[in-house]
């Protein structure tokens, strides 16, 4: 009993080995002997590992972006990155991510509402497990299964054309930004469903009953209760979807063989060695630009999330 109490008080009041711990007698022998410095050493390997294999590469990209081929400071890389074809690719990437995230947010929200309102347990579990699986699906296999479906010689393309409707003569192409927007839905919609089910379920029954007993109709409930409550989580989810689409590389590369000018694709082709003279560190500037876009999204997310948690606690 005594030992357990001591341990509890130790870990409860001495996070990170703060010096303001209760007197030594309250602390277990082990940590007194080793001192406060050792209290945090056990977590060090993990932090060092992440720093080495994630932060070092990221920082080196940002640092290199400010250098020219001779290692001198320059802004020329950024200048290049925000003009001409590279500016276009940033715009195209942001447009694609925005459109994909918007569609997925709307469809995913409707599906999350539908599944939350369903009493059928099998349907609910199926949607939950299915969403978990599909949200983790992506990359190359996804691209090929869409090629098999609505590609030039896809099964659905052929079915439609034998029914007298030629997809590709009506402005559709899978190997385009529009095609990518559709393919991305395959992992974005389930992600939206996963993110939205908890806040929808958290719409408290009391609020709904209260609004009903005050005589609210369906429209009024959604106008004054439902939508205001769900707006922060929807915004947060939208940002997650946007980031997801913005960073996606594999699907776009496999589907279009790198012909679509998106930032990750451009960066990938610079890495693979398609570097023009005088653009030594242009890729690093593009990479830094990507980090900036994602960081802005992450900050917005943190802001919205703070608002959301205020409501849903």
């Amino acid at each position, binding site marked *: 009993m005594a030992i357990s109490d001591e341990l509890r008080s130790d870990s409860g009041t001495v996070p990170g080995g703060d010096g303001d711990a209760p007197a030594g007698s309250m602390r277990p022998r082990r940590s007194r002997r080793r001192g406060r410095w050792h209290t945090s050493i056990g977590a060090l390997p993990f932090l060092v590992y992440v720093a080495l294999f994630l932060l070092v590469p990221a920082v080196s990209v940002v640092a290199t972006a400010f250098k020219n081929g001779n290692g001198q400071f320059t802004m020329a890389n950024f200048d290049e990155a925000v003009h001409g074809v590279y500016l276009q690719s940033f715009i195209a990437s942001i447009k694609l991510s925005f459109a994909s995230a918007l569609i997925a947010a709307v469809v995913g929200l409707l599906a999350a509402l539908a599944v939350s309102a369903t009493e059928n347990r099998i349907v609910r579990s199926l949607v939950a497990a299915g969403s978990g699986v599909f949200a983790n699906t992506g990359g190359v296999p996804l691209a090929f299964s869409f090629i098999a479906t609505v*590609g030039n010689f896809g099964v659905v393309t052929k079915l439609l054309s034998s029914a007298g409707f030629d997809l590709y003569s009506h402005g559709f192409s899978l190997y385009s930004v529009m095609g990518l927007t559709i393919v991305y839905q395959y992992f974005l919609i389930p992600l939206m469903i996963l993110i939205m089910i908890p806040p929808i379920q958290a719409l408290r029954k009391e609020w709904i009953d209260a609004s009903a007993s005050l005589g609210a109709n369906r429209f009024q409930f959604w106008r004054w209760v439902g939508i205001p409550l769900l707006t922060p989580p929807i915004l947060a989810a939208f940002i997650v979807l946007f980031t997801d689409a913005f960073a996606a*590389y594999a699907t776009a590369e496999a589907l279009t063989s790198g012909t679509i000018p998106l930032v990750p694709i451009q960066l990938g082709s610079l890495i693979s060695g398609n570097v023009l003279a005088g653009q030594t560190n242009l890729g690093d500037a593009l990479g830094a630009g990507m980090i900036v876009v994602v960081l802005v999204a992450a900050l917005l997310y943190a802001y919205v999330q703070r608002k959301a948690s205020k409501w849903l606690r």
Partner: protein
Amino acid sequence: MATVTPDLQRAGGGGSNVLRLGKPFRYSVLTLVGAFFIIPILASARFSFLGNNNSFTFSAYTQLFGTPQFWSTLWLSVKVGVGTVALTLALLIPTVIFVHVRLPRLRRLFESVSLLPLVIPSVVVTLGVITSFRNLPNIIYGTPVILALEYVVLALPYSYRTFDSAVQSIDLKTLVDAGQSLGAGWIKLLRFAILPNLRSGLLGASILTFAFCLGEFAVASLLSFTTFPVFLVQVGRLEASQAVALSLIALIFTWIPLALVMIVFSQRRGGRRGAGVEAAIESAVAE
């Protein structure tokens, strides 16, 4: 991020009258969305069995299995996956347990660290790896070892949270107290008390990490390692039906373990905190 996700199965929160959504709405939405997800799978299956003149054939599959590169790239991906899982567990087990026992107030902070890979797109990480590790010994930089080393970090958003929520769900304090009062050291504690209670968490983290490794394309292809997904893209440029067949195999083999993880985690504790949900939410950059 919603950390407490109410159980899907619980009736209370979401009966039909509560959300005021009619049956026609519910079923038409779910049917349409369901169709969007099922049609590409059916179409892929049909496409991969399509021979000349619409005949039915296994040739895409038999040709694939006869390609030595199919087996060698798959084997490479499996090796990288196993290495990544081993490294991940070696890193996560001590860290997460240590954080829970000694630094419980920093739990959130460590969770945020594990989410950092979501802020740095993997294409950018790859570029950084090239610029900063170019000069490392060839055994690290020039071999797939670098892939495993990077995948540990890139899969953290899945693995860390899965394992962390598993540790959170057991009464670690009591286990540690009981073990220590019986005189067990940390090795014995881990071996006989803690890890056996974390089996599903370990399994979940391992499966998610392994699935990530088998599917990862960006880093491998940009560092010029022909892993399974890279091979898949090469096949796709020549033989569409083989690539589709291969994709179908790849999808099914990732879906089965992922589905297992989802089921195991949604049943444990009534799905109070679906690790699958958490992990999936973080699927971001991973693709």
